């Protein structure tokens, strides 16, 4: 039963990779990796129970954090072309249009 | 009888922990060097680390001479559970080689760094140098296959960045360092996959345990594949002939201190690992060990001796000539190793040690006389401005060419003798031809340095600093001494060869 769930999540992750490869704009790719990461977190939680070792959830917590941090870094790279400057002043204005 | 028999260098408690202190001392020195605010303190730390490890190496040499192989279970757990530091005659031979070259380089390092790099980088350069030194010492001492991979990486990751720091003098250091990184990492990863295959067959990582279980193991193909991968990986690290492309660039563009230390030790320790795995660990698998040695390494070593020497003749930059000569010398050593006789291996180890001394003297003196420009012409008539340094350089170049009354001559003479006795005439011919071409480029260097006068403008040359001179002359004098009376070093080499060859009759 849980194994069926794990197989379903695997399919969803495969679809995310298709979006990652096909994504026309860079933000589609960042979205694909972010969603891929969140689905991985769910997969870990589900697999922990399917394998009978529920104490694997520590790994799931780390996934959620790393996924968030790498999504912000990827987005900064595409948007501001630099990792160093503060994001708090993310500009909504329309200068610097780029892919 | 080893020259260290009966020598006593430290109290029994210290000797008991010598294997661990041998590696922990330079590691601590590296951390202290990184923490030290000024370049001077970093130099003192690296000098202290190098001297302590030389002291420990001497203690271990005495201990091994007295009571055979020393085994030290780190963490208090005996193998196969814990990691074992195992030093027999062969390991102690290479331990001494690495620590002697380390002390010499460390003594000369302060002035060499001052000539080439800004003040703020000195403490990190000393830390990187000490980490590479720790890695190489760890490689010679460890008795655990995976631990050897870890120390291989410790020694090489530090050196990639150190070689790249030569960019302040010559921008090609960056591309050379990148090539060195890619090739070195592929070599180390092939080595770890080979160890994985041996682990799959034997189930253990301790080399002595692995040797026993290999002898009894049924599945040979995986073990032979593992040994083959280890051989290719270490051949990449030792710059054996077809896989040597990274060495000339790294040796010609890196900072002098790093290149002098690398030329003396890095490729030599890889040769040690090759001997350890193919003769000691693969002892059981007669076919595999012998097969790889005779059909893979020997022909490549023969080609290396000739082709590398010929390429050295056509180079215009001083350090590139010496880099190709190093590749040829590795070819000679491997011809001796694969000769299959104790005399051959002894001559190879003797040649290895003398070559390490000679190359370190040459690179240290080239760097210490503070000449800008890498081309040979910029050294014309350096003998007048820096008589003492150039005298040592001349002595070493003579040794490199194998002129009589130098250790180089004695080493080649005995190697040719051993190979002739084993009936390997093609190897004798290869070495002889290669030595003749060596006369050509050594003669060219000597002629430029001593007799020629016209030098392109702006190539100023100054005498080396006292500390650098002391280190250079210590090594040059000992290389001459071993030319005259080679008994001490030769006995040490014979003990080392006997301990390995004895293991597999």
């Amino acid at each position, binding site marked *: 039963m849980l194994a069926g769930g794990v197989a379903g999540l695997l399919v969803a992750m495969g679809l*995310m990779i298709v979006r990652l490869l096909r994504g026309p704009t860079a933000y589609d790719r960042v*979205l694909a990796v972010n*969603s891929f990461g969140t689905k991985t977190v769910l997969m870990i939680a589900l697999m922990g*129970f399917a394998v009978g070792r529920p104490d694997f959830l520590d790994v799931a917590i780390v996934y959620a954090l790393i996924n968030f941090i790498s999504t*912000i870094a990827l987005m900064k790279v*595409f948007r501001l072309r630099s990792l160093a400057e503060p994001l708090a002043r993310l500009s909504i204005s329309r200068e610097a249009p780029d892919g | 009888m080893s020259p260290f028999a009966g020598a006593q260098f430290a109290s029994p408690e210290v000797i008991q922990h010598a294997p661990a202190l041998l590696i922990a001392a330079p590691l601590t020195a590296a951390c202290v060097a990184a923490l030290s605010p000024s370049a001077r303190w970093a130099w003192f730390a690296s000098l202290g680390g190098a001297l302590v490890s030389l002291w420990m190496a001497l203690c271990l040499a005495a201990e091994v001479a007295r009571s055979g192989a020393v085994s030290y279970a780190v963490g208090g757990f005996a193998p196969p559970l814990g990691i074992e530091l195992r030093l027999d005659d062969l390991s102690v031979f290479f331990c001494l080689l690495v620590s002697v070259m380390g002390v010499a380089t460390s003594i000369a390092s302060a002035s060499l760094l001052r000539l080439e790099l800004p003040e703020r980088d000195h403490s990190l350069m000393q830390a990187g140098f000490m980490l590479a030194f720790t890695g190489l010492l760890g490689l010679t001492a460890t008795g655990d296959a995976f631990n050897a991979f870890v120390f291989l990486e410790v020694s090489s990751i530090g050196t990639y960045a150190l070689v790249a720091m030569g960019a302040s003098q010559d921008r090609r250091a960056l591309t050379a360092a990148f090539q060195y990184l890619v090739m070195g990492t592929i070599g180390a990863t092939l080595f770890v996959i080979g160890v994985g295959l041996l682990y799959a067959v034997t189930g253990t990582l301790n080399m002595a345990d692995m040797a026993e279980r290999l002898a009894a193991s049924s599945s040979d193909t995986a073990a032979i594949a593992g040994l083959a991968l280890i051989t290719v990986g270490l051949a990449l690290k030792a710059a054996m002939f077809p896989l040597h492309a990274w060495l000339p660039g790294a040796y010609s563009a890196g900072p002098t201190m790093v290149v002098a230390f690398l030329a003396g030790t890095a490729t030599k320790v890889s040769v040690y690992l090759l001997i350890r795995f193919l003769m000691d660990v693969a002892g059981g698998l007669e076919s595999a060990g012998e097969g790889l040695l005779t059909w893979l390494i020997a022909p490549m070593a023969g080609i290396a001796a000739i082709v590398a020497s010929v390429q050295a003749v056509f180079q215009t930059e001083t350090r590139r000539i010496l880099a190709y000569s190093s590749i040829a010398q590795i070819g000679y050593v491997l011809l001796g190793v694969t000769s299959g006789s104790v005399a051959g291996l002894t001559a190879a180890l003797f040649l290895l040690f003398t070559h390490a001394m000679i190359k370190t003297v040459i690179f240290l003196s080239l760097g210490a006389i503070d000449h800008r420009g890498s081309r040979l012409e910029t050294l014309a008539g350096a003998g007048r401005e820096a008589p003492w340094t150039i005298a040592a350089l001349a002595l070493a170049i003579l040794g490199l060419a194998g002129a009589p009354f130098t250790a180089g001559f004695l080493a080649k003479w005995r190697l040719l003798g051993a190979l002739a006795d084993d009936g390997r005439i093609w190897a004798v011919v290869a070495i002889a031809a290669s030595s003749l071409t060596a006369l050509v480029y050594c003669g060219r260097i000597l002629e430029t340095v001593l007799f020629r006068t016209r030098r392109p403008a702006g190539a100023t040359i100054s005498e080396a600093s006292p500390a650098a001179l002391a280190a250079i002359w210590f090594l040059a004098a000992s290389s001459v001494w071993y030319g005259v009376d080679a008994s001490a070093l030769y006995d040490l080499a014979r003990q080392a060869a006997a301990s390995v060859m004895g293991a597999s009759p």
Partner: protein
Amino acid sequence: MAEAIGWIGAVLVIAAVGLSIAGAVGVLRFPDVYTRIHAASITDTGAASLMTLGLLLMAGFSPAAIKLCIVWVFIMLTSPAAAHALAGAAFGSGHRPVLADPRQPSEDEA
């Protein structure tokens, strides 16, 4: 009784996986970035909530249950924030959402 709770948990988990697959299909089929971000983040947080509830029923009172709640809190905190930042960045760099305007072809065909 415990068996029944276990089964309800399993059903919730299967529902969560179904929602996740629906979201994935949505991300593939939708015309432009903003609708895809919408599809992805809604279904991710929804599937996470359903999955956590289902597994909680199966885990009962154990350290694993506490960890499950921590995972749920983190996903609730990070996923919407990341989606918001992504949409802001996409908008800031000049991507216009595809409004229901027949004249403007959807991004995929352009």
